C-alpha cells in the first residue's frame, strides 16, 4: 500500500478524477445495458464505437480546429455506422442463436480496429482540451485540470437527461415495456424493430460521444477499444443488466475503484475492478440494481 503521501487533497483529487472516468463509463454502459435489456444483443463492438468516436473527433478537429463541432459531428458519424450495423448485420440474426451475434460483433471489433490503424496510423493520438477548459484551476490550493470537471458535469447532465428520457417520456416507456415483454409490445401495435434501430443507434452515439470526450485527457489508439469494452461490461454486470440506475452506480463504483486503486494500491490496480466485481456478484448475483434477484 502506498499511504505515505496520503493527504486529504490528493484523496479529493483522486475522487474527482474517478468521477470523471465514471461519467464516461456511464455513457458507454447506459447504451450497453439498455441494448442488452431490450434487444438481448451483447455488443462486443461497443468499445470499437468509442474508439471510432475518438478518431472521428480527431479528424474533425484537424479539419475545423473546433472541438465543439467535433463533439457533435463525430458521435453522429458513429451513429451512422451503428445504423448500418443494426439494419444490415444484426437484424438478420435476431431470430438466430445469440452466439451468432457475439461472433459477428467481435469480428466487427477486430475488423474496424484494423481499419482504424490503416486510416489513422498506429501511433496514439490525442485531442487538445478546448477553451475555456484548456487549463488547470486552483482547487484546495493545488491545480486541477478543469476539463475533468467539465467532463464530470457534462456526464451528470447527460445522466439526468437520459433518466428523464427513459422514465418520463412515452418512447422511454416503450423501451421499458419492451425490456419486460417484447411480444406484448408488438401486440399493441408498436413497431419494435424501429425501436430496436433507434435504441442501437442512440447507444452508439453515446459511445462515440464518450470517445470524443475522453480524447483530451488520455491519448487513444488501438487497444483502447477492447480495454473500454471490458470496463463497460464490468459496469453493466455490477449494476445489473437492463437498468439505467444500475449503469450509473456501477460506473461510479468502477470509476472510483479504478482511480483510487491506481493511487493507493498501484500494484493491485489492474485487478481492483475485478475484485470488486467478484465481491458484488458473490453478494448479489444479478447485480446491484436488478430487481429480479436470482
Amino acid at each position, binding site marked *: 500500500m502506498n499511504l505515505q503521501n496520503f493527504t486529504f487533497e490528493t484523496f479529493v483529487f483522486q475522487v474527482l478524477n474517478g468521477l470523471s472516468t465514471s461519467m464516461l463509463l456511464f455513457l458507454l454502459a447506459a447504451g450497453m445495458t439498455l441494448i442488452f435489456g431490450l434487444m438481448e444483443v451483447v455488443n462486443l463492438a461497443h468499445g470499437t464505437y468509442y474508439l471510432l468516436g475518438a478518431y472521428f473527433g480527431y479528424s474533425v478537429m484537424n479539419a475545423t480546429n473546433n472541438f465543439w463541432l467535433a463533439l457533435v459531428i463525430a458521435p453522429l458519424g458513429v451513429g451512422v455506422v451503428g445504423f448500418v450495423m443494426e439494419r444490415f448485420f444484426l437484424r438478420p440474426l435476431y431470430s438466430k442463436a445469440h452466439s451468432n451475434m457475439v461472433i459477428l460483433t467481435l469480428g466487427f471489433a477486430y475488423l474496424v480496429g484494423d481499419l482504424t490503424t490503416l486510416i489513422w496510423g498506429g501511433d496514439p493520438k490525442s485531442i487538445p482540451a478546448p477553451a475555456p477548459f484548456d487549463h488547470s484551476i486552483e482547487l484546495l490550493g493545488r491545480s486541477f485540470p478543469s476539463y475533468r470537471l467539465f467532463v464530470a458535469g457534462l456526464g451528470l447532465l447527460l445522466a439526468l437527461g437520459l433518466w428523464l428520457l427513459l422514465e418520463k417520456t*412515452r418512447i422511454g*416507456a*416503450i423501451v*421499458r*415495456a419492451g*425490456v*419486460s*415483454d417484447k*411480444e*406484448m*409490445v*408488438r*401486440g*399493441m*401495435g*408498436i*413497431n*419494435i424493430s424501429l425501436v430496436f434501430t433507434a435504441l442501437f443507434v442512440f447507444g452508439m452515439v453515446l459511445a462515440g460521444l464518450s470517445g470524443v470526450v475522453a480524447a483530451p485527457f488520455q491519448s487513444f489508439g488501438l487497444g483502447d477499444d477492447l480495454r473500454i469494452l471490458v470496463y463497460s461490461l464490468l459496469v453493466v454486470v455490477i449494476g445489473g443488466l437492463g437498468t439505467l440506475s444500475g449503469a450509473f452506480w456501477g460506473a461510479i463504483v468502477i470509476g472510483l475503484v479504478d482511480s483510487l486503486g491506481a493511487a493507493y494500491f498501484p500494484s493491485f490496480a489492474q485487478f481492483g475492478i475485478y475484485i470488486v466485481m467478484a465481491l458484488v456478484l458473490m453478494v448479489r448475483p444479478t447485480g446491484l440494481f436488478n*430487481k429480479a434477484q436470482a
Partner: protein
Amino acid sequence: MSMLEVNNINTFYGKSHIIQGLSLSVEEGEAVALLGRNGVGKTTTIRSIIGFTPPRSGDILFKGKQIARRKPESISRMGMGLVPQGRRVFPNLTVKENLTVASRGSAKGGWDLERVYKYFPRLKEREKNLGSQLSGGEQMMLAIGRGLMINPELLLLDEPSDGLAPMVLHDIADIVVQLQKQGLSILLVEQNVKMALKIASRAYVLNKGQVAWAGAAEELRNNEELQHQLLVVSA
C-alpha cells in the same frame, strides 16, 4: 363481411401440430365464446390470430383483409385489441404508462385515458402505482383498458376470469357485456363456461386443436349433458 374469419388454419410450435384445420368466425358487433378444456389450443388460436404464432397454412381475414402472414404490430394497428392470458401488464411501468404506451392518439369517439378511467375509476386511483403493485382484479382492468387504448374493432380476451374473486369476476363480465353492446366485436376465451355463455351469442368448443362443437350459446347453456361431454375432463 365478417369481422373475423379464420379458415382452416394449422399452427405449430416447432414440430408439434397444435391447431389442426380450425375455422371460426366473428360477425360485426358479436360476442363469440371459445371454450374447451385446458390445453386444447385456445390460447394458440388467439396467438395465431394476433400474429404471435402465425399459422403455417390457412387464411385469417380481418375485416376482409388477409392477415395470416402479417406481423402482430400491423394486425394490432388494423384494430385488433388483445387482453392476453395471464394479463401481461408491464410490471415496471405505472398504470398510466401501461395505458399510454398503447395509445394511438385518440381518434374521434375512440378510447383515451379519460374514457378508460371512466370505465375503471379504480385505475385512476392507482394511476401512479406500478403494474406489479396491483391486485389480480386491478391487473385485469388494466389489461382490458390497455387493450382498448388501441381503439379496437375486435377485442380478443383470453381467460379474463382466471384467478379472480367472484365479486371482481362479476364486474369484469359486466364490462365485457357493455363493450359488446356498444358495438365492439369480441372473441372470448374462457374456462368459466357459465360466464362465457352468458356474454356470448355463439360458441365454439375446441378439442385437440379442432372445433368439436359450434352453435348458439343458448343451446349449450341449456344442455348440461352436452356441456359435460364437451368440457369436463374425463377421468
